[in-house]
């Protein structure tokens, strides 16, 4: 039986879908920026092995990397109110995405730092730079440059993972698509559209991140 495609639900409700796309982008931007920041901090702590901080960051990384994202989301949204912290759906989503990306990028960036040649450290010591200066001026850029493609992939994974935030009544792309699906029963068309948009967003974000990398990081020589 040939399937009759009908894309009217998408034309008729483009406002809701556009809002969904913007929300997905917004979540990714906020979660991505916070997560990468968290990742740099975490990586530095793990790299330097400062006693107590090291244990705390290691516990955080292992906890996040070994539990499902959905459960983390539920914990923040449904669990924390019992402890007196009530976050709106979008706040909980950004927090969960940032924490998730933070843990993964901690390990990715740490790998970048570990991969640097001994000579860099010795050169920095010869210039009598403090450890802080060594990190900031000498090590960070080449470390990031080494792992930038992995970090881009991780950001895209988190962007795609934002579809799970539809569970918290955040109207992002997945949520908008399934809302319209429930009203128009055009599941195939709507999810086809959502798939195409996610693909497009992923390509777009990878392109932008590559530009950012080239502009700010590539000049750091390993």
């Amino acid at each position, binding site marked *: 039986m040939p399937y009759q495609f009908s894309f009217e639900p998408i034309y008729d409700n483009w406002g809701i879908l556009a809002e969904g796309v913007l929300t997905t982008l917004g979540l990714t931007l906020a979660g991505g920026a916070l997560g990468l920041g968290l990742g740099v901090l975490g990586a530095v702590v793990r790299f330097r092995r400062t006693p107590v901080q090291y244990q705390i960051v290691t516990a955080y990384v292992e906890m996040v990397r070994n539990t499902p994202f959905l459960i983390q989301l539920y914990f923040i949204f449904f669990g924390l*109110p019992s402890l007196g912290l*009530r976050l709106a*759906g979008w706040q909980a989503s950004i927090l969960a995405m940032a924490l998730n990306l933070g843990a993964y990028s901690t390990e990715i960036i740490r790998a970048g730092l570990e991969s640097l040649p001994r000579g860099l450290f010795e050169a920095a010591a010869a210039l009598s730079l403090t450890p802080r200066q060594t990190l900031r001026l000498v090590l960070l850029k080449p470390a990031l440059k080494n792992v930038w493609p992995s970090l881009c992939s991780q950001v895209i994974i988190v962007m795609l993972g934002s579809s799970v935030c*539809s*569970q918290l*009544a955040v109207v992002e792309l997945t*949520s908008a698509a399934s809302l319209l699906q*429930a009203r128009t029963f055009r599941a195939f068309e709507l999810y086809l559209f959502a798939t195409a948009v996610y693909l497009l967003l992923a390509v777009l974000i990878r392109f932008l991140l590559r530009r950012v990398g080239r502009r700010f990081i590539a000049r750091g020589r390993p």
Partner: protein
Amino acid sequence: MTGLGVARPSRPDTSGRGGRRFGTSRFRFLLLAAVLAWSVHLRAGEGALDAIKKAGLLKVAVPQDFPPFGSIGTDLKPIGYDIDTAQLIADSLGVGLELVPVTSTNRVPYLTTGKADLIISSLGKNPDREKVIDFSSAYAPFYSGVFGPVDAVLGAPADLVGKTVAVTRGSVEDLELAKMIPAGVDVRRFEDNSSTISAYLTGQSQFVATGNIVAATINEHDPAKELEPKFMIKDSPCYVGLNKNQPELLAAVNSAIAQAKRDGRLEAIAKKWLRISLPPGL
């Protein structure tokens, strides 16, 4: 039955006397049909109430898998709203009660084939069912509505503007509520019922749109967070189902329900099983 056999009109008539024979057998057939119809009418008709009273036993089809309307208690006997209502009607008729456990698919056949006198099985009214059976007046509330804390003031959909309400995406409540509310209501749509309920219970939304049975379950588990109905979204109360053409039994059932509504016995049953007062319109 031989009369019926002869009456088969498809048989070719070559005898020449066929016209007369055919006429006679048609008359016999009509007579037989009338007698049969009359006897069925007698059995199911005026006799029904008398027959129940004579037997001293009212057979009622009740659910056993649909709490709080009907489920199996710890002593393995059916308990629930429907069972209490059945007892109430049996008491009012002054007869004993026999519970006939049914499922939602076989409850109507149980009635129409005479295995039960009444269906009290959270049965809703719809045109298809009305072709087959009769309905009493409503005895139990069954509705979707917007629920919230006891101290929250909310009388109509328009009052929701600026407030948050949790609902399960794509559910009847979601679709119907969307038609009722003005713009400016913050509707939070969740993927499944339990998330919707959790969102309300953890304070992530101020109100929740759901069914009164779900609300009853929450009130039972967590009396501290009592859900109070604010307004109805869709109402489809439960009725007692009876066989057609039983005016006396119907009248007796209706008067039993009306009496129970007046003297508060039905309200007590609602409070016991649904934890919520009967809605005013029932």
